[in-house]
């Protein structure tokens, strides 16, 4: 059974397949693992991918880029309006829907954004079929967390039109978590994970909670003004000023020259992620003048430092907004091509000194791999996902037990964390000194931060008349089971004698 995961970004798309228990990205026919999400229309054909991107120097008005930003939006959407003003390809409103006006010489065509997306999906399908054979059409597609119902529908329709069988649309941060298998090994425990996605045009940050293997988005934030394109833009501007310095020509007003510089800057930016310096060479950039320039990584980092700072500020802002400190985050997942930038990774590491930075998978492949894994989970299942199964009951408060540590001070330990999907059972082996004949398990509830007040104690379980044993510890097995309505059942067993005590606590109505 093979399945496909597709990630469609604003600037590029990537496809991964799940086969024989493993997920991997598939390179397209040009040998690239990531395909630019660009569609160029010419007189008799539609070109998708790198060729379209490179030919935009000559064919800018018939090249559709960043189609994801307009998909499923109406003309009164501010984001769509912004896109329309920025787009080099003419966008008009026809019959209440936005269309691209493509003039290919003979006739003027009106192209739906959905059609553009369909072409990109068809390309991704072809790529996936190159390793799977043509009968695998089951796909999971990722969408940004802020995608609305309309946009999801439009995307799903486009994928179906391209011949895909859409199993599910999942959110990009969840896919990133799944790619690293976070919480998938054992369904116990709770952790908070920051997903840092720096894509082509936007930065989106999410704080996710993983509890019992189930993901929840706690808070999320998207900034449309930082992205890979902005780094390239900065570098291209620098190159233009270098050109001006050496040849006294201002190329900033020349669209075609700037486009060439952009292409060159992008290549340079990519190589700077691995190399210390990169060379830009452009034949006859302007009035027959060749341009040759060397950019060092330090120069690039200096140029882009305001953007880096913006990213870090955004992380800080999100942590504040969700009420976390850097210590509350257990892991950071990097995704999106631009998070390859070494400087950026360094800055994030500085911000979370004690945290594991997950970047073992190439960042621009994280999300499609997650989607492919999800597709592998879903394939062959009767897909009965209904909207209301997304809302599940979770425990509202931490359940803690009070004990003493070696020094004799009181301490609390969480036995049953808040946010656990119900029903659930948690099992803990606690220890008590062997010198005492009765053991008391004092249970407290609290809404976070591992501390509880005396008045939040709601029950105690006492095991009496245990055999005393000198110089040793006894193991007490505590099993907490919470039902969907939130009522709790606690069982305590002394492992040695098998003595058992159980209580049930109802929820105050």
């Amino acid at each position, binding site marked *: 059974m093979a399945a496909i995961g597709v990630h469609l970004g604003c600037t590029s798309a990537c496809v991964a397949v799940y086969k024989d228990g493993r997920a991997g990205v598939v390179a397209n026919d040009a040998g690239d693992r990531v395909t630019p999400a660009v569609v160029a229309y010419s007189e008799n054909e539609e070109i998708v991918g790198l060729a379209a991107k490179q030919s935009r120097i000559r064919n800018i008005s018939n090249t559709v880029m960043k189609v994801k930003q307009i998909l499923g939006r109406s003309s009164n959407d501010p984001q769509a309006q912004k896109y329309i003003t920025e787009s080099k390809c003419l966008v008009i409103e026809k019959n209440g829907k936005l269309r691209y006006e493509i003039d290919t010489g003979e006739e003027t065509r009106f192209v739906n954004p959905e059609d553009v997306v369909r072409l990109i999906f068809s390309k991704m399908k072809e790529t996936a079929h190159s390793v799977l054979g043509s009968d695998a059409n089951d796909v999971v597609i990722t969408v940004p967390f802020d995608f609305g119902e309309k946009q999801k529908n439009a995307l799903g329709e486009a994928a179906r039109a391209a011949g895909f069988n859409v199993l599910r649309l999942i959110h990009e941060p969840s896919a990133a978590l799944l790619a690293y298998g976070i919480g998938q090994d054992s369904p116990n425990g709770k952790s908070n994970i920051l997903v840092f996605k720096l894509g082509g045009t936007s930065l989106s940050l999410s704080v996710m909670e993983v509890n019992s293997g189930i993901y929840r*988005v706690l808070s999320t934030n998207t900034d449309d003004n930082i992205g890979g394109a902005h780094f390239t833009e900065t570098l291209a501007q620098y190159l233009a000023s270098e050109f001006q310095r050496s040849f006294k020509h201002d190329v900033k007003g020349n669209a075609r020259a700037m486009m060439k510089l952009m292409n060159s800057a992008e290549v340079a930016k990519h190589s700077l992620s691995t190399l210390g310096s990169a060379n830009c060479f452009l034949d006859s950039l302007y009035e027959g003048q060749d341009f040759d320039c060397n950019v060092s990584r330090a120069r690039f980092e200096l140029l882009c430092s305001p953007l880096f700072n913006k990213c870090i500020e955004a992380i800080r802002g999100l942590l504040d907004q969700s009420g976390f400190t850097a210590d509350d985050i257990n892991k950071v997942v990097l995704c999106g091509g631009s998070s390859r930038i070494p400087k950026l990774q360094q800055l994030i590491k500085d911000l979370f000194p004690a945290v594991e930075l997950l970047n073992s998978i190439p960042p621009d492949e994280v999300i499609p791999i997650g989607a492919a894994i999800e597709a592998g989970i879903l394939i062959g299942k009767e897909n009965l996902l209904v909207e209301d199964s997304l809302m599940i009951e979770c425990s509202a408060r931490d359940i803690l037990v009070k004990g003493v540590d070696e020094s004799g001070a009181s301490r609390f330990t969480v036995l049953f964390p808040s946010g656990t999907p119900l029903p659930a059972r948690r099992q803990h082996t606690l220890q008590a000194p062997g010198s005492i004949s009765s053991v008391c398990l004092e249970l407290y509830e609290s809404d976070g931060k591992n501390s509880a007040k005396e008045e939040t104690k709601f029950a105690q379980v006492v095991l009496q008349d245990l055999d005393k044993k000198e110089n040793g510890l006894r193991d007490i097995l505590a099993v907490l089971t919470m039902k969907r309505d939130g009522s709790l059942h606690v069982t305590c067993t002394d492992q040695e004698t098998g003595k058992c005590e159980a209580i049930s606590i109802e929820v105050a109505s």
Partner: protein
Amino acid sequence: MLLLPSPADGRGTAITHALTSASTLCRVEPVGRWFEAFVKRRNRNASASFQELEDKKELSEESEDEELQLEEFAMLKTLDPKDWKNQDHYAVLGLGHVRYKATQRQIKAAHKAMVLKHHPDKRKAAGEPIKEGDNDYFTCITKAYEMLSDPVKRRAFNSVDPTFDNSVPSKSEAKDNFFEVFSPVFERNSRWSNKKNVPKLGDMNSSFEDVDIFYSFWYNFDSWREFSYLDEEEKEKAECRDERRWIEKQNRATRAQRKKEEMNRIRTLVDNAYSCDPRIKKFKEEEKAKKEAEKKAKAEAKRKEQEAKEKQRQAELEAARLAKEKEEEEVRQQALLAKKEKDLQKKAIKKERQKLRNSCKTWNHFSDNEAERVKMMEEVEKLCDRLELASLQCLNETLTSCTKEVGKAALEKQIEEINEQIRKEKEEAEAHMRQASKNTEKSAGGGGNGSKNWSEDDLQLLIKAVNLFPAGTNSRWEVIANYMNIHSSSGVKRTAKDVIGKAKSLQKLDPHQKDDINKKAFDKFKKEHGVVPQADNAAPSERFEGPYTDFTPWTTEEQKLLEQALKTYPVNTPERWEKIAEAVPGRTKKDCMKRYKELVEMVKAKKAAQEQVLNASRAKK
């Protein structure tokens, strides 16, 4: 390292207070295998954790069961192992009292106990006699365990459990105590069901839904009972494949037969129960009663509706009648009033006229001369005719109040005005007539060489059409135009107006030309003014209907002039018809009178027809 303390105050297990907050609904991401597992679990309405709890409970129950006493089978030692098929394996293992309800664990335990007790080695030690080989009764225990430990074989044995009561109560048995008779039977048979949670028979008070579920369950009963145990031939005994196959076939056939019988048995049971069930009877009656009631209610509603409708209709009719009566009354009153007023006015005008004549007479008609006097009298008569009541009164007043000269002047002025007025009217009429005749000429000319060319063929066609659809045809000219359009070869679309115009222009042509045209038409050479021989009296106009069409027909212009003249010269004008004839050029007095009569007759006929239609429609109402 966390250590649990000992209870502070020596209290035992206790709940201080209930949990303060219930569970909260959270939105989760539909991602990952744990989510899938969670949703699956929830859709099955079971939870892993609670499932485990229940398993544990079962475990503990079983451990209790192990202590269950085995009932020693008294005949055990007398059993012949060769006859194992007819033995009760449960009884052999000492589980005769639990039978099919025994768990695997219990069977295992029972077997162990039996082996410990009856194993030949043990008995040998105790000095009991033991038969050689397989003939010892211990073989029965082994066989019984073999049968019961294998779920498939055990099911086969359970299916033919010798203690099971296969009987089905007949209808007569259950006449009075349905529930007592059938309840245990269904209870008994429910063990064959593949599905768990077999619905209970219930009692007299069970709801319709419950009963329905019960019977639909039993009519679609899915039984696991099978009869492989009763196979006469054993497959394992066969020596070759073909024989095995034959045995298998035989067995399958007998099994199917038995299964069928079993299904029939269940079916009979359910049928019997269904036909005896007092609740079904009750429900049926209720249903019937309900339907009847509904029917009644419907009929009642319909009747009421009809009554209401009838009432409303009556009321409406009454109201309409009253309104009509009232209206009629009003009209009558008004007519009476109008008549009275008219009479009064007439009287007044007569009086005034008389007065004028008298005053004129008293003044000797302002003249001594006889001839002049006659003329004056004539003028005065004219005045009397034409003047309104008010002006007459005014004139009379002047005449009576002042001297002869002033009176004469006023009278003469009045006369002059009247004459002027008459002259003007005449002039107007003439001008109008001139204008009209001009128009006709023009239109006649226009019709001839109008915008649409009338080819010769078309003209022939037109004439044919005109003859085909004589005057009086419903929307005659439209029909003719349509006919022309269909049959014409020229392809020109003609409207009714065009056709009328052309037909009229054809009529206007003078006879000489007509003859000429006719001749040429016959030769089919004419190009423009083609006409047909019959055209002069066949192409008609709406105005010429009637018996006098052999005279020169009246044109619209002449008709108009005539009408104008009739208005100009009121009924009591002396030599009225001569004057009218004068006003209509080209017509004699006789012609005019005839036409007038015709018109009057037409109007009368029209009125009569209208009245008839009106009466008819009223009668319909």
